[in-house]
């Protein structure tokens, strides 16, 4: 049976420290920001947004929402539109993969993605002198002019499979495979696992009443489940409503 990897993110536990974003950048050889980069031209495969209940101080309450590629399972919007098969959905894992070395850089997939989880290399990647020594050998850095995004740390998936094979276990579903952000979250807010495996923690958590997915009605069947006991936080899953302090988006 094929795996269907997914995540549950407990918004009530996230204090927006950003460990996941840094760990992701470290793991996937994402370069530091170019001098001209801003929050709309950056490379943040996982990005923590600060959301609020739209009220004014002191009724205002905030929460932090990490958003990464939602790994849509149904008619994956980006994979559907890529003109040259640079995006594919791996049937073995359900992970939406991106092949930067085949990408034309037309950014059609970015326009197609409702979660803005895809990022374009606006500049040549550059690291401070000497820092390239710290690059992760299991991930190839990307060149300028291509799109990239979260792939649940594909490199880690490979290594985990090799380890599993070495230990004589079934390589199909390595037990110790977790993406960097999951490993890094100090609050343990992000959980990762196989949604098809009914015994897994994510399978349970995803079915809880407090769990929800972003823009579920679009019918793209994302595999990232968010979790919060606060009612106003649950409303972030729905379509935007104009007005109400929308001008505040930090993060």
């Amino acid at each position: 049976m094929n795996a269907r990897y997914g995540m549950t993110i407990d918004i009530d536990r996230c204090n927006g420290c950003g460990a996941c974003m840094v760990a992701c950048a470290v793991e996937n050889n994402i370069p530091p920001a170019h001098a001209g980069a801003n929050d709309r031209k950056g490379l943040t495969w996982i990005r923590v947004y600060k959301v609020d209940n739209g009220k004014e101080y002191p009724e205002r309450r905030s929460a932090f929402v990490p958003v990464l590629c939602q790994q849509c399972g149904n008619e994956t919007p980006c994979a559907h539109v890529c003109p040259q098969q640079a995006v594919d959905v791996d049937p073995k894992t359900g992970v939406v993969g991106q092949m930067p070395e085949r990408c034309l850089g037309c950014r059609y997939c970015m326009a197609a993605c409702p979660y803005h989880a895809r990022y374009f290399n606006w500049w040549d990647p550059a690291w401070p002198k000497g820092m390239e020594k710290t690059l992760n050998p299991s991930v190839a850095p990307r060149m300028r002019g291509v799109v990239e995004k979260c792939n649940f740390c594909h490199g880690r998936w490979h290594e985990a499979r090799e380890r599993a094979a070495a230990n004589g276990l079934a390589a199909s579903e390595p037990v110790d495979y977790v993406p960097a952000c999951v490993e890094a979250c100090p609050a343990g807010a992000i959980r990762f696992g196989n949604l098809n495996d009914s015994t897994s923690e994510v399978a349970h958590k995803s079915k809880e009443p407090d769990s929800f997915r972003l823009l579920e009605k679009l019918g793209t069947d994302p595999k990232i489940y968010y979790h919060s006991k606060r009612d106003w936080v649950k409303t972030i899953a729905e379509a935007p409503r104009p007005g109400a302090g929308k001008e505040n988006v930090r993060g």
Partner: protein
Amino acid sequence: MDKEFITRGVKRCSGGKFLLWLTPWALLLAFGLYSAALVLIKGLNQTNMDNRFAFGLWIFLDLTVIALGAGAFFTGFLLYILKIDDLKAVINSAVVIGLVCYSGAVCVLAVDVGQPLRAWFTFWYPNVHSMLTEVTFCISCYLTVLAIEYLPIVLKNRRLREVPSMLVFEHELHKLIYVLAGVGTFLSFFHQGSLGGLYGVLRGRPFAFREGLALWPSTFFLFIISAAAVGPSFILLTTWLVEKISRKKLVKPEVPGLLARVSGLMLAVYVLAKTVDTLVWLNRTSPDRGFQGWQYYSWRPFGTWILFAEIVAFGLVPALILLSPKLRAHAGWRLSAAAMACCGVALNRFVMTVQTLALPTLSFDPFMSYYPSWQEVGTFLAVVAYGVLVYSFSFRYFQLFPQERDLRVQAPPQREESELVTAGRY
């Protein structure tokens, strides 16, 4: 002096005057090429596009330009397939316009992708489900076809006709041109459509997403109709413009009327279809996906006025003007209606591309705004200048308007039947 290149018997301004006319455009082209080079060499960071505004000015202009260039295929279709011979008067001009628009669009496209050198991957690893693949294939094929259709026009040049092989090839190719016209029609039909599909299939963008028939969303068909509607209008405008600039009579008076009628007819069909589509989308498609229709229009500055402008002011109104014979006959009305039609379609392309990207999808998204950088504008100006230059040269050295020579003087009307008046006058 270039006199021996100019068709015998047509008047063209002096070479010096021509150069004077070319200079500003040439400068503009140079500037545009410079900015395009910047983008190509330094990368897309030269533009103001970003991860949220992944497409910018260029996609809007590409779509508009290609819609306006649709005159080429639609006129060709009417002339060679439906045999409406009056359109012979403008077909050459239409072909040149088409060529200019399409080649220009393709160049801009090449500038605005991250890795232009990999463009051929699209042919090598085509994803047949992607509208962009369809667009790429059709546009590249159609551009070839247009180039071939342009060939006879070039070879007809007075000096080139001296070369026997060219003379003959032109003659023979012209006999087969209807085949190319047919193919061209087929191709442009599909890529005009898939350009519409481009946004209609974005299920992640409920503002653009449309349900469809068979493989294609409704925008696929709307784009075809609107392109067919605006193509003749644009020819109408350009012809008039050329007549004004060159201070010559270029086509018989009945031709613009015909174009206007065709354009009006298609436009009426389009407005009708568009209205139905909009209603279905606002009341079913969008709400089903959790997005209430009204909220799209509560983001400043995109109020409902844009919907009204698109469908009524620049759709229904020009359609009615062009359809009423009395108004159509009047040049002023005819031309302003044509212009309005063009604006309407441009506005439609703008809404489909830019507004779609500006509107938020996540509840914690802001409304996005974007202003093109001067490099982007420059790249577009390059296309305009390039178009003007190519057209000016074609107009000077080739016969874009076959009727021009006969129209120098009012030739006595010819009657077509050839009956024997009298045998044996002697």
